[in-house]
């Protein structure tokens, strides 16, 4: 339909927008969400809400990185804070010792987290299921032990404070984080939908079968650990410089469990699920500050209710009501359509009539 020269032409973009994005409620919502993030400062530059959204974007990236590893490949990590925390520490130490700016130390921290991901991934070649989860849980505990062992270097239990800021103002920091977040999520989403993503899925479903068709699952599992750790590390570095503190809190069990809650709440193995989960739950906890005593109780009740009535997560629950899969060509359609947008088959077929006995 479009030659290479016309690829970025306005009519093509409009057609793409109309037929590929606005045709599906899920994609429309994703576009609206990205626009909301990019345009929010036009309507409000309240530093508190900019802070909440910035932190939410950082944690959403962290949750999405967990989803790529645990949701897609089924390698459930209960120690994901290891990647998040060591990247923050690495960035802080590199900045302090070598005087490097955050623009350099954060990617370096993320690269160190990638190496750590490969290291943590090695046991996954031998242990599976709950055993692997327990092994991953051990890594942040080991890192904490090392931090307490070298307090002069790491600041001990109080961490390293006074890190340089990400930007000159809350607004600058907001745009930096949001643009990085959107770009990273796009990469993760594309990866999850690619051939590699399909193989990740397949490993989760039946690793033996994947191996039997000649796929090197060892390499794929290590790749999942490395990519996931890179993005968790990126989030950890941004977080440390945003708070201006890299402390043991970043390696806590609580910090390892948080992405699990956000992802399961939003919808596991989707990439956009953890993003939605974090963007719903993190600001909600802030709103609940109005009812200080009931804050955690209300939060826990909401999570329980959603899990009861939308067991696949909020995103899947909502999308299943807004979109319908064509029974013939398997393409998704808006619930308002009567016929499939690709093959034209009738979508809302009534229940087959009972055959008279």
């Amino acid at each position: 339909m479009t030659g290479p020269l016309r690829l970025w032409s306005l009519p093509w973009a409009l057609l793409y927008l109309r037929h590929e994005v606005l045709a599906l409620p899920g994609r429309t919502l994703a576009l609206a969400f990205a626009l909301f993030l990019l345009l929010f400062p036009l309507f409000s530059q309240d530093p508190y809400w900019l802070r909440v959204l910035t932190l939410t974007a950082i944690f959403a990236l962290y949750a999405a990185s967990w989803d790529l590893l645990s949701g897609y490949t089924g390698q459930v990590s209960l120690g994901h804070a290891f990647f998040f925390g060591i990247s923050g520490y690495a960035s802080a130490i590199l900045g302090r010792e070598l005087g490097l700016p955050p623009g350099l130390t954060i990617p370096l921290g993320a690269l160190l987290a990638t190496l750590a991901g490969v290291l943590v991934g090695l046991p996954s070649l031998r242990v599976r299921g709950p055993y692997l989860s327990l092994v991953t849980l051990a890594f942040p505990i080991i890192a904490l032990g090392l931090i307490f062992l070298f307090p002069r270097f790491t600041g001990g239990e109080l961490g390293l404070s006074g890190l340089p800021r990400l930007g000159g103002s809350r607004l600058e920091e907001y745009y930096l984080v949001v643009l990085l977040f959107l770009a990273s999520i796009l990469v993760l989403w594309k990866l999850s939908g690619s051939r590699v993503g399909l193989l990740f899925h397949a490993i989760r479903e039946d690793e033996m079968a994947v191996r039997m068709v000649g796929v090197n699952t060892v390499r794929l599992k290590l790749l999942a650990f490395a990519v996931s750790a890179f993005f968790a590390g990126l989030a950890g570095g941004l977080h440390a410089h945003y708070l201006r503190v890299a402390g043991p809190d970043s390696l806590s069990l609580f910090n390892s469990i948080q992405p699990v809650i956000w992802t399961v709440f939003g919808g596991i193995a989707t990439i956009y699920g953890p993003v939605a989960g974090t963007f719903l739950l993190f600001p909600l906890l802030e709103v609940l500050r109005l009812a200080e005593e009931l804050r955690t109780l209300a939060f826990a009740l909401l999570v329980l209710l959603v899990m009861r009535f939308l067991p696949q997560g909020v995103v899947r629950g909502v999308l299943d009501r807004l979109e319908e899969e064509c029974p013939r060509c398997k393409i998704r359609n808006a619930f308002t359509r009567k016929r499939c947008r690709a093959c034209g088959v009738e979508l809302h077929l009534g229940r087959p009539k009972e055959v008279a006995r």
Partner: protein
Amino acid sequence: MAHHRWLALLALALALAGPAAAQTLRIGILGPMAFVQGEHTWHGATLAAEELNRAGGIAVGNQRYRIELVRVDTNEMTSVTDAATAVERAITAQRVDFLVGGFRSEAVLAMTEVAADYRKVYLITGAALDGILAGRVDRNYDRFKYLFRVSPTKSSDLARTSLLLLGEVIQAVRRDLRVERPKVAILAERAAWADPLVETASRLIAAPAPQGYASEVVGTWRPSATATDVTPELTAIQRAGAQVIFTVLSGPVGVPFGRDWGRLKIPAAPVGINVEAQQETWLKATDNLGAYVATLNTLAPSVAITPKTIPFIANFQARFRQFPIYTASGAYAALYILADALQRAGTTAADAVVRALEATDYVGPSGRLVFDRTHDVTWGPGYTTGLGVQWIEGRMQAFWPRQWRVGNQVVSYAGVRPYQLPPWVVEAWRR
């Protein structure tokens, strides 16, 4: 006509209400409100605000200000991120003018970064880490000059006091047990903050008099801060023949320590830091086995550190039915210090208030408060030092400072009684 009368009345009401609304100082009280440390910060500040408002508020220049407290739950025990966000919300959304409180040092570091971004005067009342102020206020004055610490004394000063308490118990062992060179076991929780204290104590205990205690260190034991059983450590200490146990415990391990020590009747007297033993629930928590345990503390019943101590404790207990912990007396003093500085500054402008705060010389419930060049509370005789307390006859009693000589000064508070060795320790070593 009637229409005009209503308008005039409305204008009058607005004119009256307008200045009154403007004459309110909003003070954000920060703390982990689900925990006793945060709750007492709030209670202490509430008591002071009520007293100040009853007395007509704070006179700043030509205006009088009423205090309005804003409760800010920092949730800092669980999440540092949450704590820093709570401070930003307090400053930008809740529009507080000043900040008071904070407890967990790691969280306070992040919280003070936000306060410094907004140039808000922040009086810390809970965190002890030296580095919250030292190395920040002195090295980067322009950014961090808005930070002050009212309580507690910083970690290194807490260490000095706890070592003085140890000296008191070593003296009691020499005097009552006639042991010339007492044996001391060090029991410190496995945490980074305890390391320098263990190192200093080891050196000081073994050093000859008058600089050191001319005693012997029989060993150092490092249980986890959350250990639920310290029987192995205690039996090893007993086997090592110690007469004194120097405790460095801030975590929940303090309770199992007290319970196991009392149950096993270990013939060694514990003294040092045991945060669990600072609370009025100590005996109940240890099934009454924690009697005779001695620890550093800030306040003790019936001990008048200053003329304000007893009235503060009495008012606090009457209002909240609890014995105040140090965050309560800190927050109480912080509000008075702030009120005093605002009156002297004659303006609410942050830089002028900082200058006035630097000239503070205020006598509060836990001692005289004068800020040093890093905006930290000055430690020493005539200033704030803390107390040594011991659980005797079912209640907390102070045993230090009592005839404490520093140069020409002698520090002694009314209501401080001599230290008592546990009877089974005396019995075991007199045989």
